[in-house]
């Protein structure tokens, strides 16, 4: 039993990381129907900028907001350079190419600034594990889970309770109608990109002490989170959490009970299954596209 609990805990930590990034995919998809394929790179940049700020002697808990602000600016930039031009000419696929291109550029820039080696991000918390039933959880892992929940709740609260946030929701519901009501939908889309990169950068600083920090840390996380967004449904924030937990725990359980050589398989099988049975995702709303 303690084994299963231990697998669930470490699966949940990884899963919540996937969930936060998947949540970022959803934010931009809701307002504009586009995705930032550089979401993993936004996380990587957040972590590396965070590391530099941290090394300059700033306390870890201040690094989080600073990296988040950087993430927001980076999100604005991606929207401005990569997405807006494609939307303007109503290109169906232009934004896919441009966000992927930007992701590659960010990775190369990061390699040149911070080098290609993985760097250590010192943990701000004690690394003595906490007993949790028969299993153990390290304090930073707990912080990852907590932080992921907090940032997702914060973005949800922003959307629900502020006037700007309501504009985001209105744009998500019906972009044309929102535009007619006097909402500057272009600005709202930019804002959603900023929010999505902000959550990614926040997550980057959060997981850096658990993993290692480096220019290549984003790629595989971004891809797995994309699978999570599909599994959970692109229109459901709760779906991202469920999808993240399912994938994270499935990886660990397969690793233990089947073979550690097959950890990536169950997630992808699940992805295929969801696409066949519920294409909108486990908790996603099925939308009818009128032609």
């Amino acid at each position: 039993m303690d084994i299963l609990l231990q697998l669930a805990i470490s699966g949940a930590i990884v899963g919540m990381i996937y969930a936060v990034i998947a949540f970022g995919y959803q934010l931009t998809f809701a307002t504009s129907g586009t995705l930032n394929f550089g979401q993993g790179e936004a996380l990587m940049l957040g972590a590396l900028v965070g590391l530099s700020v941290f090394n300059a002697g700033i306390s870890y808990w201040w690094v989080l907001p600073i990296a988040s602000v950087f993430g927001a600016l980076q999100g604005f930039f991606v929207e401005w350079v990569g997405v807006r031009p494609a939307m303007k000419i109503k290109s169906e696929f232009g934004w896919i190419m441009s966000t992927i291109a930007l992701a590659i550029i960010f990775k190369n820039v990061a390699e040149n600034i911070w080098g290609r080696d993985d760097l250590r991000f010192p943990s701000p918390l004690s690394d003595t594990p906490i007993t949790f039933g028969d299993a153990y959880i390290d304090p930073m892992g707990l912080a990852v889970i907590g932080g992921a929940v907090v940032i997702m709740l914060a973005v949800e609260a922003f959307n629900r309770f502020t006037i700007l946030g309501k504009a985001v929701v209105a744009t998500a519901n019906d972009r044309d109608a929102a535009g007619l009501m006097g909402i500057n939908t272009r600005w709202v889309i930019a804002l959603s990109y900023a929010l999505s990169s902000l959550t990614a950068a926040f997550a980057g600083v959060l997981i850096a002490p658990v993993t290692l920090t480096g220019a290549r840390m984003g790629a595989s996380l971004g891809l797995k989170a994309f699978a999570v967004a599909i599994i959970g449904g692109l229109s459901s924030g709760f779906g991202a959490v469920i999808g993240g937990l399912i994938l994270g725990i499935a990886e660990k359980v397969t690793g233990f009970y089947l073979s550690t050589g097959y950890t990536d398989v169950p997630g992808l099988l699940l992805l295929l299954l969801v696409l066949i049975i519920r294409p909108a995702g486990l908790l996603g709303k099925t939308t009818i596209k009128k032609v």
Partner: protein
Amino acid sequence: MKIRFQLAAAAVIAALSASPSHAADTIKIGVDGPFTGGSSSMGVSMRDGVLLAIKEINAKGGVLGRKLEPVLRDDEAKNERGVQIAQELIEREKVVATVGYINTGVALASQRFFQEAKIPVINNVATGTAITQQFADQPTRFVFRNSARDAIQAPMIASEAIDKRGFKKVAILADTTNYGKLGKDDLVKALAAKGITPVAIEQFNIGDVDMTAQLLRAKSAQAEAILTYGIGPELAQIANGMAKINWKKPMIGSWTLSMANFIETADKNSEGARMPQTFIQEPNTQRRKAFIDAYVKEYKPKNGIMPSPVSAAQGYDSIFLLAAAITQAKSTDGDKIREALENLNAKVDGVVTTYDHPFSAADHDAITDNIPVMGEVKGGRVVYAYQADAEKGSDIRLKKKK
């Protein structure tokens, strides 16, 4: 077609007329290793050791009255980069010989080009047993090595775990690269020779950041020690992973447990890890003291600790072996250098050992199983694991004669 022919002819003429005069200037030596990425602490240390040796030799007038010129290339630990570099070093740079190779996979993919071009390669870090056996079916072989091959390291690891520490149940954790897979096979073989079957054999990928599943399998199989075959960053994840699930068992593994990025990233979780080492950063002979002092002065490593002392020492020695062979061959012809390496008359005074006929036509490995010692991570650096070895550290361990 005609133009292309003329171009080719022009190139041939240019090459013919340029090469003798150019070659008279310097002796070009290819230096290939991963200078960036997860293996870089080995690659950079090897490179620095090589450069230090070249500087010393050139200061004394070089070889055959000519200076040695290193041609440095970063293979990023990628097989395909290694292949490109091998071709470039042979075709464009026209190197006389090449030293380097940190990653077994890269070495196996790249050195066939040198074998075909009849240009000697001295592997100074890569340890895959297959490396010096790759062209066993050919009459002359151009691949040499002065690192401790896995077939030596694996029995040392097994003997440390089973004979010296008395463990009965051990788990193997190895990565999915050529290095990890071949090393794991050697380890299984070495354990079988002692009548031990590992209770768990687990794999992990380069870049994996969570080892919980692997460690829990080892734990539920009641392993008493973890035997590893991987490189720094992932080894650190194993050490940190054990702390996370509060299950701390001794780590014994291949020499990569001495890598700086393992010790730094795992920090106090790296304490006590043991691994075979051909060289410990301990100035116990004059030769070694001079080498360590020069290295620290020239490259100023953090806290005065070399990122990978073994790589630096073997890199350094590989150049002296090569220089001795070129001197004896009185030529930069690849085949003559190979012959000289296989029958080296001069004793080469290196920092790992003193090389007395290190190679023969049949044996291209300079290191035998009596040369490496067990090292242990202590206080952020690698020291002798056994006091007896430390006390006899100044005795040079010579290659066993058959």
